[in-house]
């Protein structure tokens, strides 16, 4: 229900930690009780990522338990 705002959070957190490196993959852990519609996240991701270090990055959604809703990790194109 809040997927656009959540995606903005995800991009903001990744951007901060990427320290300017280009990001090619972002992996989330999402549990069934997280109240998150993963298809809506995927829909929003490309739009929100455009113009950021995560532009054209792939979004990977990994199943998790309970209400887990985390950015598990992200991968940069080259070492920092």
């Amino acid at each position, binding site marked *: *229900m*809040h*997927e*656009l*705002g*959540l995606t*903005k*959070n*995800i991009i*903001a*957190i*990744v*951007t*901060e*930690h*990427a320290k300017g*490196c280009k990001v*090619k993959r972002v992996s*989330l*852990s999402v*549990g069934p*009780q997280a*109240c998150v519609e993963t298809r809506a996240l995927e829909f929003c991701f490309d739009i929100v990522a455009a113009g950021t270090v995560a532009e054209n990055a792939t979004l990977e959604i990994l199943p*998790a*338990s*309970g*209400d*887990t*809703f*985390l*950015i*598990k*990790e*992200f*991968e*940069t*194109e*080259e*070492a*920092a």
Partner: protein
Amino acid sequence: MCGTCGCSDTANAVKITDLSTGATQTMRKGSILNTLEADYDHHSHEHHAHDHHDHDEEHHQHDGDGQPHMHGPTGEIISLETAILQKNDQIAERNRGWFEGRGVLALNLVSSPGAGKTTLLEATIKALKNDVGISVIEGDQMTTNDAERIRDAGAKAIQINTGAGCHLEADMISDAVKTLDPDTGSILFIENVGNLVCPAMFDLGEHMKVAIISTTEGEDKPLKYPHMFQASELVIVNKMDLAPHVDFDEKVCLENIKSVNPNADILLLSAKSNDGMAQWLNYLKNQLNG
């Protein structure tokens, strides 16, 4: 409709009104989540270890670089394990500690609009006000009508108007309790915005969520909005006085609640006719003493 969705109108600021003085202050514009990028604290950020998740990749750290990471085929894989709602959750945990330290029982009341949250609170305040201190945080998009009803019933009340927002967030509660200043051993009711969807996702630091449904809404609300009923420890079925007039099937309703949350406590009552209110008042006293 809400700031967190990214579709809020920034002109709709969150307002907090203290009913004892009539003073209104504007708290913030837009959602806490949308301000994250601007005020994210680079220095105090800690990597968040989530209970539900283990990670076993090999991490190592370089000097002067706080992030665990490992080298992939071309770049680096940076492990974050960062909760996406971490900012709200951190403030909620701070609220929870504040409530526990003070001995305040904080209950987050959630329901659809019109289920009878405010009427239930009025009846509760009238019944308990000589025995237990009660204060109320009222959440609505607009108007101070509900907080006025609570004040007239005899309790301290703060109105939070969320403007475009569809739920309360932890920082709103943190601000409101500073003004409300609930006493040790008292009950703080947080009447969330009438909405069975978004409030399930936002921890406010409450002791527990209480979901309220009414007989006029039909028996299948728990099936239609399972997240909210899974997040609530107690479910109150209100307006039982109307049950015979609206063909309410009590058995089916109880089965539906149990099917989405087998551990939920359930109370059937009518805040208007007072039937079943004694059980609710006892429940509150037990929670307060437990």
